[in-house]
């Protein structure tokens, strides 16, 4: 151990503000990033599930109906397919 007591550890020899600011912001940012990634995945799964449910309901209600519903996924950009 480089420190002889917990208090000393937190004090960081007078450099507490700097060390904990740097480490704190880093840790916080990484946690936020992970949380956001999980949130994003959950949202997308929900959207896909909703669509699947709706299409199943449609298919069950009208067995002759061949076209699946085209609900756009929440995105500002269009997927246009180019040939070049």
């Amino acid at each position: 151990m480089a420190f002889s007591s917990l208090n000393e550890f937190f004090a960081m020899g007078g450099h507490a503000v700097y060390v904990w600011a740097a480490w704190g912001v880093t840790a916080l940012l990484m946690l936020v990033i992970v949380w956001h990634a999980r949130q994003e995945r959950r949202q997308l799964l929900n959207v896909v599930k909703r669509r699947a449910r709706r299409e199943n309901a449609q298919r069950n209600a009208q067995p002759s109906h061949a076209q699946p519903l085209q609900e756009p996924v929440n995105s500002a950009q269009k997927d246009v397919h180019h040939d070049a």
Partner: protein
Amino acid sequence: MWAFINKLRSPKWFYAISAKLQPLFWVAATLLLLVGTVWGLAFAPVDYQQGNSFRIIYVHVPAAFLAQSIFVSMAVSGLVFMVWKIKVADMVATVMAPLGAAMTFVALFSGAVWGVPTWGTWWMWDARLTSMLILLFLYLGVIALRGAFSSRDSGSRAASVLAMVGVINIPIIKYSVDWWYTLHQPATFTITGRAAMTMDMWAPLLIMVLGFYSFFIALTLMRTRSEILRREANKRWVRELAEETN
């Protein structure tokens, strides 16, 4: 092996394969970061010249390494996308950019904070911080350019071109900024410019670097899978998958 790599081009396969790999990297990241943190913060010996503030190195250096590696990975993915038209490559590139920008910010912030006890100032125009700042602008440019087009494919191709142009410039920028500042700042303190660190100082650094890289890979796998869901939402396999996951 080529067959395996070839399989990865299919979003469906990538989704399945990365599902198995992801937990590995999360576990690795958590373990490495935990061990590195405890070792670096509590057990590594105090630095003779800088005191305890040198412990900032354990987040600053890994973040800086990642910031640069991610940009290169992004450019390589962009190249793969442009040349072989592999969409998964573009999805990976899209997902890596924000993390790269975040790591660049972390490197900048921790570097600036480190400067206060070291140089007595909140911002110092030294070669490393300046290069990091420019890298941040490059990241922001790629992200902004990708989103500025109304068609996703055009945005992806434009961002790929910019990433490739940027990656060629990064070593040039680093070299010129470095050269400029060695001219203009004769004998200032360089953050890691000292004689060899002792083993019990750089071992935790290595562990932290590995931890950060594992984190990067785990997060990229996770977000690429989300991106696949987003882009392939109208495919049958995605619908069936959603129905499976309760």
